């Protein structure tokens, strides 16, 4: 026996509205499933094209310039080396800036200004960072196309991401932990180093892995700063040698067109990159899982 007011027609959606509702639910499911299909086709196509190329020789041979059958050994090395170097530059800076924003900048105008700058740097297209790196490192400092010019410019890409991740992780630390530390007489620096950073380490690490993935895949910046050649030695740790990475190699051989097997090499390189990124993604999952477990 429901009350009469509940029977009023407008309290129940009209039939047409219910049909639209059903329809739109279907549309939303379809769009979401569509993106899953896109991803599956994408990764599937890249891996299927590249799979036959991926063998031990492909990873351990030097690249060829005119003949078929080259490998990607120095490119793989350069990719890892450049990502490592750029992180070595951007981690201290980014974490320092993140600490400043979370712990020293207050809540007012200073914070807003710094956030605006970091958003701008994060939003700057990598081709613009490439131009900047080319003017400053390659030309003005005379470093030419080299590992060091590439690493410095790549660091510019990383800094805003690491800053943001650090700031957000530090802000996630419970207030009572901080207060307990101050209450025990710790200075701000002691609190940051011994309480805040250890607590947020996993969060920051997740961000660092994501940043590494982004730097690993970056090409526009490195074409104009690290160049499209590799050193003839291996392994070549010198900061002045040219440092073509996997991503740049992939772009260069498809646009240059002197290699007879450019298609196969490109497919293999793309597949190798996807595999590396899948591994990075998996490790982020595991880290994330670790965080959830601990905070529960």
């Amino acid at each position, binding site marked *: 026996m429901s009350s009469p007011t509940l029977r009023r027609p407008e309290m129940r*959606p009209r039939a047409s509205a219910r049909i639209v509702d059903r329809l739109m639910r279907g549309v*939303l499911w379809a769009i979401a499933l569509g993106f899953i299909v896109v991803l599956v086709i994408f990764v599937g196509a890249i891996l299927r094209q590249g799979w036959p190329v991926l063998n031990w020789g492909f990873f351990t041979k030097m690249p060829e310039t005119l003949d078929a059958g080259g490998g990607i050994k120095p490119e793989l090395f350069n990719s890892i080396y450049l990502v490592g170097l750029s992180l070595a530059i951007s981690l201290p*800076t980014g974490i320092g800036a993140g600490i400043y924003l979370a712990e020293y900048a207050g809540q007012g105008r200073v914070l807003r200004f710094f956030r605006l700058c970091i958003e701008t740097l994060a939003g700057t297209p990598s081709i*613009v960072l490439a131009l900047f790196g080319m*003017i400053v490192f390659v030309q003005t400092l005379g470093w030419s196309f080299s590992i060091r010019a590439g690493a410095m410019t790549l660091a510019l890409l990383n800094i805003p991401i690491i800053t943001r991740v650090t700031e957000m992780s530090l802000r996630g630390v419970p207030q009572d932990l901080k207060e307990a530390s*101050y209450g025990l007489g710790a200075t701000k620096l*002691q609190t940051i180093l011994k309480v805040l950073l250890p607590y947020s380490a996993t969060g920051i690490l997740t961000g660092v892995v994501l940043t590494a993935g982004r730097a690993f895949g970056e090409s*526009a910046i490195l074409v104009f700063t690290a160049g499209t050649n590799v050193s003839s030695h291996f392994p070549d740790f010198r900061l002045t040698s040219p440092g073509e990475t996997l991503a740049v190699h992939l772009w260069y051989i498809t646009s240059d067109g002197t290699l007879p097997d450019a298609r196969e090499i490109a497919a293999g390189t793309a597949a190798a990159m996807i595999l590396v*990124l899948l591994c990075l993604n998996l490790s982020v999952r595991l880290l994330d899982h670790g965080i959830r477990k601990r905070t529960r």
Partner: protein
Amino acid sequence: MDPAETRHSLPSKGPGSLRFLLDRGAHSLFLACALVVVALIAGILVFLSMRGLAAFLPLASNTGRVLSLREVFLSADWAPSSDRFGILSFVAGSLSVTGLALLVAAPSGILTAVFVTLLAPGWMKALMRQVMDLLVGIPSVVYGIFGLTFLLPLVSSKWLHDSPASGFLVAASILTVMIVPTIVSLSMDAFEALPKTLDEGALALGSTRWQSIWRVLIPAARPRLMTAVVLGMGRAIGEAMAVQMVIGNNPAWLSLVREATDRAPLMRFLFTPAATLTTELVQELPNTPAGSPWNNVLFAMGLLLYLMTMGIILATRRLGQRGSA
């Protein structure tokens, strides 16, 4: 201000001791790190301006004639070897490819965010987050190679009787997939920030799920949704490599679209090899001598891209303020 300020300065060993000195030093060090970012923002502007504006100034370092702003920014006539440097067709190209990408990416991104925050069951939520994380993590050259070896041949054989398919359509479809994760994740933040009472109120008044989404939640989240779309737009305008690999790199595309008569206008627009600001930079910068007007104009294009980025970030600030007011 900060209660911690006063608390941590309570001396336990006296303010002159080492740890308090370190504490003060650390403050400056962290500030210096933050200032690096500010210096970079300013540095990029200064260096790009130095090279980009050189084309328009009578400087000693210039090897060619001084250009006027008008002949560069208001002309689509790009023929560097015969001294004509109009970049309008590249601006038009950038805007076209971005616009086309947003046409699909904005609605589908926002609706996906709606789906993930409001409709999807738990497992689907987790799956969609994973999918978006992967899509955003794929490097632009890999998107490019996919377009080059998979999409272009497919479109060309299916729709175009094997004539080349490079141009805006394929470039924009790749860009769509590249910017959707940005739009989805920011839109999800927008929906999650809405008070639950809005949705509950609408449902309690007897609206269907969709009515609540369409008439209440999307309008309420509009400023932040627009921010999401604008940031997606920023990513699309700045993307270089993926677009360069599939768009065909033809600086004279505007006149080709106008003159060609063998196809319908829309088809011509979608499938004529074209060029954008970023693709021209990738294509031509390595081959131009420093100090030449050609080289300077390319840097001016970079400066234009940078100013667009700044404009976009400031626009999102405005939108954000309107949202909180």
